[in-house]
């Protein structure tokens, strides 16, 4: 009965949102803008969400979410245009799509590939939305049992796992980035005693470092410097004819689509890991389970389907920890968290009490955004592709101005600009030296949660760490954290390999012995 009631409420919300022509206009234009951001190499959906956050400041929360989620969904999908047509991924999430999308475009099947990726992306988002609606109450209920120790360990785990999985070079660098983010979160008056930490008598630092300017600086400025410093050039766009949704191909590939969506949702719900990893894992799985792995990389349609379903399914997946635990599942979700806080919504276990219909609302927006994306993709792809002809030297400086006015407009504070630029330049050097940016940003976001909960937990236990080992959830989180750290050291790997060797040798010896043994009787 309760489930039926929830489904009823959900569809009521969908119709309520869709009934307002202004909402539809905002949806379509935001999706279009998102697709453009995703399609232009050098721009990402994270940057799109970051820059648009400033514009949504004056809107009410549902309209702002409509705008930002539509950009997120459109941006994740839009990356496939550049991947398929010019072999340069528009976003990291669509890098795997380029492997088979571009060969398809070279064969004259660009329209078919775009049609399929459009439908696949929409299906991916819708499946992930179903997971968001069905899993959220469970996670929320479970999270309500958490105490301060669990929240501290959860925040710490989020930073560590994000550092481990997003580091393009050594894992240590990912962790360093995470801790640098945690340090930035320490700046300002502490939440329990109001003691000024690392403020150096500067009153503007008393309230701490604003998250949104840090996010804009960390994602926007390095992107601008990299693209212009390395003289990035957009290649010639492949021509394509009609765009067809090809429902027949979709129906034939339903098991693959479901598998890829599950991969996307699963990876999206792990803190800090984005659509790019989901797409690569899905590509790898599709290749490993294919009857014709030799066709991969030469224009295999199932490869394009797998990557696009997975990266868009990641959107809904990333919303699960974001809304229920307050931990962003991907970099654009981190940006969304900043935007939500600006609008007075604090995601976490209490969201179901403070804003009972909010998760449903997000799910309804995701459904409408995926449908809008499909419509825009099918009807306007040819027009959108024209943005690929704009030289990067023209639009990157404009992005710079948007970063600046966006950071300033949030709080109408010039101090945000003074902060955003150094963060951006330092982030550029960090990126150049192989440090990932996502853990840094997640550190800034989760820092206050980790700090406050660590001290509150110790206050309750009178300085004892024993509850970490006596509370089951804490113990599991603690063991996972220890394993995440220890598993990165060569000594652990050597030990594991030796152990595996011993076990398997013994097993094979036993098998040999069994086969050599004379049959009884």
């Amino acid at each position, binding site marked *: 009965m309760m489930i039926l009631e929830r489904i009823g409420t959900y569809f009521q919300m969908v119709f309520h949102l869709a009934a307002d022509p202004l909402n539809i206009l905002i949806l379509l234009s935001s999706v279009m803008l998102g697709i453009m951001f995703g399609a232009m190499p050098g721009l990402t959906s994270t940057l799109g969400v970051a820059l648009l956050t400033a514009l949504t400041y004056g809107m009410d929360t549902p309209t702002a979410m409509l705008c930002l989620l539509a950009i997120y969904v459109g941006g994740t999908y839009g990356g496939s245009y550049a991947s398929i047509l010019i072999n340069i991924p528009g976003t990291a999430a669509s890098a795997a799509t380029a492997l088979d999308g571009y060969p398809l475009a070279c064969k004259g099947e660009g329209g078919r590939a775009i049609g399929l990726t459009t439908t696949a992306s929409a299906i991916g988002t819708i499946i992930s939305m179903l997971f968001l609606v069905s899993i959220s109450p469970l996670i929320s209920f479970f999270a309500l049992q958490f105490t301060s120790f669990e929240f501290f360990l959860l925040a710490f785990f989020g930073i560590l796992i994000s550092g481990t999985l997003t580091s393009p070079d050594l894992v240590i660098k990912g962790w360093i980035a995470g801790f640098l983010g945690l340090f930035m979160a320490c700046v300002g008056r502490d939440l329990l005693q109001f003691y000024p930490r690392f403020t150096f008598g500067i009153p503007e630092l008393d309230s701490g470092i604003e998250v949104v300017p840090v996010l804009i600086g960390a994602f926007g400025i390095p992107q601008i410097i990299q693209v212009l410093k390395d003289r990035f050039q957009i290649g010639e766009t492949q021509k394509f004819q009609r765009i067809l949704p090809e429902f027949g191909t979709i129906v034939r590939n339903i098991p693959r689509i479901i598998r890829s969506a599950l991969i996307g949702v699963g990876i999206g719900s792990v803190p800090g890991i984005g659509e790019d990893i989901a797409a690569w894992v899905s590509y790898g799985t599709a290749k490993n389970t294919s009857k014709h792995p030799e066709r991969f990389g030469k224009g295999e349609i199932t490869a394009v389907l797998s990557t696009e379903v997975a990266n868009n399914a990641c959107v809904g997946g990333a919303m699960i920890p974001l809304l229920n635990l307050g931990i962003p599942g991907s970099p654009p979700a981190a940006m969304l968290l900043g935007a939500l806080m600006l609008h007075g919504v604090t995601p976490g276990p209490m969201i179901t009490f403070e804003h009972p219909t909010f998760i449903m609302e997000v799910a309804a927006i995701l459904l409408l955004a995926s449908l809008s994306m499909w419509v825009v993709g099918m009807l306007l792809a040819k027009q959108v592709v024209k943005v690929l002809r704009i030289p990067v*030297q*023209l639009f990157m400086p404009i992005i710079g101005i948007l970063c*600046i006015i966006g950071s300033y407009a949030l709080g109408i504070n010039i101090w945000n600009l003074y902060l955003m630029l150094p963060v951006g*330049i330092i982030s550029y050097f960090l990126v150049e030296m192989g440090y990932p940016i996502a853990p840094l940003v997640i550190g800034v976001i989760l820092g206050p949660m980790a700090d406050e909960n660590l001290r509150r937990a*110790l206050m309750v236990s009178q300085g004892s760490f024993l509850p970490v080992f006596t509370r089951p959830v804490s113990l599991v989180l603690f063991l996972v954290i220890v394993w995440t750290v220890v598993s990165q050291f060569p000594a652990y790997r050597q030990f594991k390999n030796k152990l595996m060797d011993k076990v398997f040798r013994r097993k094979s010896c036993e098998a040999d012995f069994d086969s050599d043994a004379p049959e009884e009787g």
Partner: protein
Amino acid sequence: MLEKEKLRKADVYSGIIIFLFGAWIVWQASKMPMKDSWGGVQNVWFVSPALFPLFVGGMIMLLGLLLVRTALKTIGLKAFGNTLQWLFSKELFQFLNSMSNLRFYAIATLFLALVYLYIPRIDFFLSAILFLNVFILMFYFDEAELLKKLFFFYLAGTVFFIIYFAARIDGWLSQAFPFAKDILALVFLLAYCVYAWRLIRHSPPLRRKYRTGLIVAFVAPLLVGSIFKYFLLVPMPAEGLVVALLDAIWYFEF
């Protein structure tokens, strides 16, 4: 990202910097109240505001050390010695003078000047137009020699403005002429446009790029700035000549 071997060499230095940074955090945190009273409340170590920064600083120190150890293990002490020699050789100067680094200096200077010099003092629209005009023309022509000349021209203008504001010339000039600094910025913008035109006037493809660049540089800030100023009602960081003009048009103040 750098190549693997270069990356490991850079890791030694970045690891040392990170270790020192962690040590600084720990040092600063050690000044915070641990067991003494703050705001009339007697502290205990586990509620102290120093607890979390100490943990973070300690971890940063440890990870910095681990990074240095890993990098040194990979490249060996000899290779590290070579990088030390490189730091005091002519090659470092050549590296710093490379075209790719010049592009970085140009971008960094443009952003630094915009954020710390122009935006707080000069009309936002003028600052943004100047920034976009310089930025687009410098990079859109896509010629190293032109970029160098345009960058040094811009640098000279920026140095002039630094002296202008540091010597407080603006104070008494503004009393004599309204919008003095904005007019100076406008003159600088026009001078830059003329200089760029003189450099490219003999090349038709560059002339076409010049026109496109100019249009984008003027239209984009007016569009974006107007949305923020008149639709989202965000007051600009500094409002001067152009804002006064736009206000007159927007509110019919004729």
